């Protein structure tokens, strides 16, 4: 079973849920797809046993062969190439690696070279296998790295994917082809607003979903009313508690100090399976 933990709004507790759930279930592989700001390794402190660089391909234009016809830059949907009368400029951060420019070049002047955009790290902690991606600072495109993390998925494991915040392409890449999505929200107007957008993404993708309300007790009841109206099951409430917040601030998963919660996460898994 592949479970994704997502939220829309940042800081609602995705990583808290993903990590504590991973520690509560058996035979888990945790994939941290928040490659811009991965945090699950901070809570799990895994021993890293493999680091793999991740590359994307970018065009290289041979000035000898190029006759500055401009077909490549006209074709490029991402404005990654600029052709002037006597020179060609490549903007590697804008390139999506579609390969179009080398296809359309009539002089075969374009080849491709690899460019590192980040790395994936694999490790193990407390019986949980973890894979996470780290986007190099200054790199714009997270999706190829998210795909590289997901390529490490093991089908014989209970897979938990920790998704990035937001509702755009990075979320779609993370949640695509997963069996179920847990939406973590907080009972505030910000939490509700971003939850609604995320629900729309999941409906478009056809991924079944349920909600975990974090920091329950804060805010208002509107998230509860919305879930009821939309028929989205409420899987769990995690109360607002200074103890949980304090444990998180020190990087301690709360099930380690409050083991009674393991049972609750197991129940969540059972409910999802049903």
């Amino acid at each position: 079973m592949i479970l994704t933990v997502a939220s829309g709004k940042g800081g609602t507790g995705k990583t808290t849920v993903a990590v504590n759930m991973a520690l509560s279930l058996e035979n888990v592989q945790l994939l941290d797809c928040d490659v811009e700001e991965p945090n699950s390794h901070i809570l799990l402190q895994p021993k890293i046993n493999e680091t793999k660089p991740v590359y994307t391909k970018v065009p290289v234009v041979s000035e000898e062969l190029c006759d500055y016809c401009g077909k490549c830059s006209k074709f490029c949907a991402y404005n990654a190439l600029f052709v002037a009368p006597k020179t060609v400029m490549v903007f590697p951060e804008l390139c999506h690696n579609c390969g179009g420019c080398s296809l359309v070049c009539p002089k075969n002047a374009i080849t491709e070279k690899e460019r590192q955009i980040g790395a994936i790290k694999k490790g193990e902690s407390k019986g949980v296998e973890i894979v996470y991606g780290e986007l190099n600072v200054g790199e714009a495109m997270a999706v190829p790295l998210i795909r590289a993390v997901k390529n490490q998925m093991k089908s014989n494991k209970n897979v938990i994917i920790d998704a990035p915040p937001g509702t755009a392409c990075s979320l779609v890449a993370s949640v695509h082809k997963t069996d179920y999505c847990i939406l973590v929200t907080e009972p505030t107007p910000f939490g509700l607003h971003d939850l609604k957008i995320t629900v729309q993404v999941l409906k478009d993708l056809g991924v079944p979903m349920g909600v975990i309300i974090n920091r329950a007790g804060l805010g208002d009841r509107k998230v509860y009313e919305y879930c009821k109206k939309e028929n989205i099951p409420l899987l769990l409430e995690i109360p607002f508690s200074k103890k949980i917040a304090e444990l998180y601030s020190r990087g301690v998963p709360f099930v380690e100090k409050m083991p009674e919660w393991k049972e609750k996460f197991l129940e969540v898994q059972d409910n999802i399976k049903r």
Partner: protein
Amino acid sequence: MMVKEITVLSGKGGTGKTSVAASLAVLTKRTVMTDCDVDAPDLHLLLKPEVLETQEFKASRVAVIDEEKCVQCGKCEEHCRFDAIEKLIIDPILCEGCGVCAYICPVAAIELEKRVSGYAFISKTKYGPMSHALLNPGEENSGKLVSLVRKNAKKVAEKENCELIINDGPPGIGCPVIASVGGVDMGLIVVEPTLSGIHDMERALGLLSHFKIPSLVCVNKYDLNEENTSRIVEFCGSNGVEVVGKIPFDQIVTESMVAGKPIVEYSPESRVSKAIAELWKQTLKHV
């Protein structure tokens, strides 16, 4: 007159960017506010803009196969690097609109259709003008929409004779964040005193220095873990970054959010509001 531009960012989500930015809207005059978090925008929930102008944002294209023309040669599938074509069916979610399939198709059965990926808005609020947007759920090109939001803000700033633009940035350090900080005069990082918050702040500071943008830091909910707050102050000190303020934790911030008001307006005498006013005073010394 030169318009100055500040972006509020954080790396980690949910540290309080929008709560701080909304308060700055109240504390400043002749300022254009923007919400650069175009896929999960929240600033409008506090500033309650009245939309004056709506623009369609058409940036992305999606490939469509004409089944009648298709001869099922499979070349499109072979050349698509996004695995968006499977058994001659295009998955619009995976398609990045590059156009390779349409180019390679020997019978011209594939066309690229432009799609509306979102909307940009120019609005007025009781605190001043606002530029914001909404990306359609699951869309790409959030960075381009952020650039449009900032372009609109600059136009409004010139027209309305404003001297400052404050951008409420998105979380992360990728495409939309880069689009939110490129060329601004200052990045103000809101950090929470958790290990994750510190880790993400370091990456956000790295991003600002990569683009040679001066940075300031303020610690939100600093009293939730004072030991971590000291670590942040120490880290910033040894990296030449000034900590311009420390905001205490108080549930009144959530109350103000539920009331739909910036905290400095909802409860001007609260400790949180005073701390935000002070951090803004310190920030202005650098802008």
